[in-house]
């Protein structure tokens, strides 16, 4: 509509990514802009696709354990656990109590480092160059040292095995873990003092990228994203896998479902993780770290299918496995990646916002392209 005083504009198609630091890897957003406002946005992925699933179908069951590290390379411990859990479900393997505790400790440490990094990178996307991210990476470094002490590797841990974990943890490592965990709340207080009531952060994050509760459920959104929208659903509470029924912790839930809620739910989740860790590190029993009946060499699984899932830091991480009659290799191996499915509603959240907001919204989804593209 042309009228005096109104400048006519054309819609503009912008391809954001794949080589762009704010897309957190090789990820592309095809955006259509009206002025600076997004009217259409299509995520484009697959740049890191390596057919992880087919690789796994061509080797024995244990062979793909190291490859699960490379899915979400921040959270190799919880990826290992999800795969081990699914295979244990298929084969009916029991896990000794000490191994269950070690798994909980590793998974919760992973949640701490994932969330702390996410907050750091989110602030990086907001333009707070360096400072919050470096505080976050400092804390992550301490946890990575623990991982290195138990598994020999900082990021690609390859630590869990069917029926337990690869090596036992020693008392020295547990003492170090207790020290780190006990100091973590003080760090969080400091971090929150810097961020939670920060005026810029509030202005940029509140009422931005709102995800309504009903849409979140219908679009299979899981993890902190869903909980920020008010969906009270935590697989640790619902499935009670491992020994999670023994710990006292709460599930933080947001109200509005905007970027700020997603930030704050993650901060609160870290506080709950600290509680779980303190209980687990206090109660960890002595005993074997691996079920001695499980022969990992020439490992076989009875025919049939099964689905196992855990509450990974990014959401529901599941493995759907099918074994054929030989049972030597997976006949079908499917990963249900939380960050891939959480991208389903990226367009819905971005419509009507500015380009700079889209970057922040993408940051708050928390994607890792190793997992999105597989």
């Amino acid at each position, binding site marked *: 509509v042309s009228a005096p005083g109104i400048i006519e504009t054309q819609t503009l198609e912008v391809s954001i990514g794949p080589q762009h630091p704010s897309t957190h890897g090789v990820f592309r957003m095809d955006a259509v802009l009206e002025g600076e406002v997004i009217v259409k946005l299509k995520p484009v992925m*697959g740049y890191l696709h390596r*057919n992880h699933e087919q690789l796994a179908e061509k080797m024995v069951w244990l062979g793909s354990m190291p490859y699960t590290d490379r899915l979400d390379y921040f959270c190799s411990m919880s990826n290992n656990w999800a795969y081990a859990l699914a295979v244990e479900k*298929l084969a009916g393997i029991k896990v000794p109590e000490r191994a269950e505790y070690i798994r909980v400790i590793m998974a919760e440490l992973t949640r701490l480092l994932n969330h702390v990094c996410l907050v750091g990178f989110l602030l990086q996307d907001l333009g707070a160059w360096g400072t919050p991210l470096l505080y976050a990476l400092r804390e992550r470094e301490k946890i990575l040292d623990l991982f290195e002490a138990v598994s020999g590797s900082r990021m690609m841990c390859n630590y869990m095995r069917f029926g337990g974990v690869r090596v036992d943890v020693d008392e020295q490592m547990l003492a170090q873990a207790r020290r780190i965990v006990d100091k973590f709340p003080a760090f969080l207080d400091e971090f929150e003092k810097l961020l939670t009531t920060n005026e810029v952060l509030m202005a940029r994050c509140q009422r931005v990228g709102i995800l309504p509760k009903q849409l979140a459920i*219908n679009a*299979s*959104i899981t993890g902190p994203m869903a909980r920020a929208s008010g969906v009270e659903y935590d697989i640790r509470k619902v499935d009670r896998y491992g020994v999670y029924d023994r710990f006292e912790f709460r599930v933080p839930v947001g109200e509005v479902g905007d970027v700020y809620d997603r930030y704050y739910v993650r901060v609160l989740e870290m506080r709950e993780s600290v509680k779980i860790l303190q209980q687990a590190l206090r109660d960890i029993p002595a005993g074997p770290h691996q079920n001695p009946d499980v022969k990992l060499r020439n490992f076989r699984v*009875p025919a049939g299918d*099964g689905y196992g899932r855990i509450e990974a830091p990014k959401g529901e991480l599941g493995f*759907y496995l099918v074994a054929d009659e030989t049972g030597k290799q997976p006949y*079908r191996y499917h990963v249900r990646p939380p960050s891939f499915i959480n991208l389903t509603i990226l367009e819905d959240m971005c419509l009507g916002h500015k380009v700079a907001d889209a970057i922040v919204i993408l940051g708050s989804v928390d994607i890792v392209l190793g997992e999105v593209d597989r």
Partner: protein
Amino acid sequence: LIGSVEILRDAVVTAVPGVEIEIVSSAPAAQQPALLVDRAHVLAVARFLKDDSRYQMDICSCVTGVDYLKQGYIEVVYHLYSVALKHGPVVLKVRAPRELENCRTPSLTPVWRGCEFQEREAYDLFGVKFDGHPDLRRILMWDGFKDHPMRKDYAPPMDYEWEPTPHDETLERAQSQAGTIPPSAAEAKR
């Protein structure tokens, strides 16, 4: 889950008349029996499972395909959970013939938005066409790609980048498949 899978099956049969339904057992230890539903009724069954107050399967957690080469069909598997009632999973299976032109099944994206990307992935990797899907495009492989790489009879080319020199089947395949490399360029490289 409230009651056994047999009760669920009977409830589905009453709610969706004419449905062909069968219980498929899972691995013995996993205890996740599935409902195998015919293609014509799967959408009605999905709507029933989502809306029925006893089940309220409001979240479709996982969608994937499995290629059963010997049996001659591709199975699409849906894992449903209920956030409202905190139970699950209900496993819903649909079978489509392997031949590409007949390999189609109704999309469940109109019922659960969460199927959108996952069905696109199943289409991309297995070649299952989902009727009624709003935006059925490749998602992981590139647009010019012709095959469906997760099918069990898929033969990968020797080298995707036609290096160091394409020859024999790889050259033929590259030329017929992609059409992106003009014959003269292939000749020159040779």
